[in-house]
């Protein structure tokens, strides 16, 4: 017993040491950034202090970090499915927009509907219906948009990197067109024409989230919303889907080896479309959740990232940081959320240009991803230090034991 605990502790320590390279990489990135800061006559320590404070320093900061992380996480889960299925999906941005457009439209239309009599009896039932329909609609729209790239790849051999980059631009223009036209907020029409929809009615909004710890509740009066909970729950679902279901197995099989998959009787084209469909769906959810949970309307400034805030892009990075594992995507997304929100604070407090933050983020990404090699080398060395286990010794060998 004691010995087992000891081994477990050792394993834990080992895993902790695995994070050392990441930390060192972060420190190095900060060091290089410090040089830039010093060149700008800014005290790096206070700069990074503000960054940390901006990310997790206050209850509101933490909430904002999580708010920022929410769409990133949705996208990252989807990207994980796509990449596991061998599809390089760069189309998170466009799929987010597709989802947001559909979800917002549904929410607006249903929001105008009179509550049916039999539903009016149960308070909240109709609200739940609106929100659910919008989420599902957003998911489906994103899924179809992503699935389109999968379809083009499966049946026309159109490379998905190419098609998704192009489809992103198309989605942006489509959104501008609709938001300047049929979806335009009637209050804006003929006046300012800012591309935005009308505000969603309260019934169509995803509720804000606070935790019943302390008084007032934690995250009360922040923008944190239920989207985060949905995202984390779905991360678990997708983990199970990918590694515990036959459909997930097929997606991963096709991603690893198309030839062996078709030899095994797996319909390769179908899995390609499916993984892009699901990836698009999750990006679509990211979009619709931003609308229902945060902005209560769909709006943009016309630029490619005007609505998405580049979450479709950051989701790719988060997915890869998360080791292409939906569970890993959760902390990875939170990390990125914190980075982005903290950086804003730094800019606010010491007036360093926003561009510096962008550069620093780039450095962090490069350094951290470069540090992975050291983790891999460590785990290899670890294997070499162990004796080759006798065949199957670590497992029960008889059927009864299983």
């Amino acid at each position: 017993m004691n010995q087992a605990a000891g081994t477990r502790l050792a394993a834990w320590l080992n895993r902790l040491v695995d994070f050392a390279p990441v930390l060192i990489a972060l420190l190095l990135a900060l060091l290089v950034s410090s040089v830039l800061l010093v060149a700008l006559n800014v005290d790096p320590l206070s700069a990074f202090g503000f960054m940390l404070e901006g990310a997790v320093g206050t209850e509101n900061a933490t909430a904002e970090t999580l708010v920022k992380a929410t769409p990133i996480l949705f996208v990252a889960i989807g990207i994980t499915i796509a990449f596991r299925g061998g599809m390089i999906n760069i189309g998170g941005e466009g799929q987010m927009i597709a989802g947001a457009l559909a979800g917002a439209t549904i929410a607006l239309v249903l929001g105008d509907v009179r509550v049916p009599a039999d539903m009016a009896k149960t308070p909240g039932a109709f609200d739940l219906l609106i929100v659910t329909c919008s989420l599902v609609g957003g998911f489906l729209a994103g899924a179809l948009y992503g699935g389109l790239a999968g379809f083009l790849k499966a049946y026309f051999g159109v490379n998905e990197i190419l098609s998704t980059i192009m489809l992103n631009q198309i989605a942006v223009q489509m959104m501008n067109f609709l938001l300047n036209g049929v979806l335009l907020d009637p209050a804006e029409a003929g006046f300012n024409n800012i591309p935005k929809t009308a505000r969603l009615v309260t019934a169509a909004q995803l509720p804000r989230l606070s935790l019943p710890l302390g008084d007032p509740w934690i995250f009360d009066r922040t923008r944190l919303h239920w989207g985060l909970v949905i995202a984390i729950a779905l991360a678990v679902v997708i983990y199970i889907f990918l590694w515990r279901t036959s459909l997930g197995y097929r997606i991963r099989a096709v991603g690893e080896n198309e030839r062996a998959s078709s030899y095994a009787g797996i319909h390769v084209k179908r899995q390609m479309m499916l993984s892009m469909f699901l990836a698009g769906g999750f990006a679509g959810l990211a979009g619709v959740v931003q609308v229902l949970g945060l902005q209560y309307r769909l709006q943009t400034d016309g630029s490619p990232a005007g609505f998405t805030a580049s979450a479709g892009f950051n989701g790719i990075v988060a997915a890869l940081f998360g080791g292409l594992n939906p569970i890993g995507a959760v902390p990875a997304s939170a990390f990125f959320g914190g980075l982005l929100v903290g950086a804003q604070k730094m800019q606010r407090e010491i007036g360093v240009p926003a561009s510096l933050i962008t550069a620093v983020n780039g450095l962090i990404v490069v350094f951290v991803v470069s540090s992975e090699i050291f983790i891999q080398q460590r785990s290899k060395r670890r294997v070499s230090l162990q004796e080759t286990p006798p065949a199957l010794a670590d497992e029960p060998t008889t059927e009864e034991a299983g």
Partner: protein
Amino acid sequence: MESKLLPTGHARIESLTMRGIVKRFPGVLAADEIDFDVRSGEIHALLGENGAGKSTLMKMLYGLYHPDEGEILINGKPTAIKSPIDAIQHGIGMIHQHFMLVPSLTVAENIALGMKSSRGFQLDLDVVSQRVLELSDIYNLKVDPRLPIWQLAVGEQQRVEILRALYKGAALLILDEPTAVLTPQEVDGLFRILNQLAADGHGLVFISHKLHEVLEISHRVTVLRDGRRVNTIPTSQATRPKLAEMMVGRPVLLEYEKNAPNPRAERLVLQGVSALSNRGTTGLDAVSLQLRGGEIVGIAGVSGNGQQELAQCITGLREVTIGSVTVDGKDVTNAPPSALHAIGLSYIPEERMIDGVIKEFSVAENYVLQDHGHPKYTTARIFMLFNKIRQACRRAIQLFEIKTPSTETLVKSLSGGNIQKLVLARELARDPGVLIAAQPTRGVDIGATEYIHKQLLEERDKGTAILLISEDLDEIRALSDRIAVMYEGRIVGEVLNENVDIEQLGLLMTGGG
């Protein structure tokens, strides 16, 4: 004979000595104080089971791996070989067990790769092609230098490897299992070349699992087992059983007891099946074939003559353009693989690493490649029951003596022989009515080969119809009841095994006869 130079103009390597070589891999001592030497004019055979350390030892000579301990002496001088460039400069050439060819490049381009061009930075492919043609004429190794590698069959690719080594004029030539894919005639041709090279003053290291080849061609034999040198003896003092025992550490069956054939109903029928090859040319040309339950039909032939297309047409991986395929009376022409699995067709693919397994998946996951959605491994066909899968897999591991640390080990870290056993275990576990076995023992050591052969015979006696596609005539002869020979996409002859004349088979395989 005692000139310092080889006919190619390169200096000889009078002697090459590896002394006290140690190489450790994660969890494995691949070379443990190995001494090994080759002399000019000598063919030195290296024998050993899978994973004995043969390739590792030679890769250290070729600069691909670096010894942890020990030294390498060329002509008595300690020499550091840091990379293949060093090795090539020292006159060491290597034909690798896993082909080192770039599929998208042409033969000439593959040969020109890494060499100085006579036109400076510009490629001189016509010069290279010319020389390749000359060489292939001299050594009777026909290839078209303008064809891309991906269009070549495995056997042809092997020829390119050999040609390339000859082209580079190495003084010391390492051949890691070079004969695995050649016809008897080609093997004879190769041996003639090897003898000639040795006579010219080259040193040669010859790795093979085939004892008779070793006995025929080599001057000395070194046997490795588990990373250690068992012994080095002159070939004149070696016999097959003795070598086999040195390798495996126990006496080995070299001939099989085979029950009399007991053919039953027809299970697999091909009628006038034609198909295109990867190149878009005719790959299969009106092939007709009948297989009964309880018999093994061997398909002999040099690789690239339609065997792969044949297997793929039967297994639903290639479109049949004309003709029909029937299994147990059911027309399955161009049926998807999943439908074929369902009616009891199993397939051991030739390229096991690419078609047969998913390297990044665990042993258990690979074990259910086809059956991952089968009701017995799932609840409601959705959730996979990994406990059941692991259990079944564990049973197969024990039954088939697959060497793997656990069911959760990734397949990429198993040796080729064990991967092949895993594929075999999986395909047989599916209790097939028809089994297509393509090159089931290529590159597999004699211990494992023995095992796989016994399994195939057992399966036959259970009433399975087995189509055995192999370029190893010994294997075809040992297992088949009937033998069909393929040449240029057609079946050019069919004989009962007992009536076979090896020379005649060889002739058929090369379009003669």
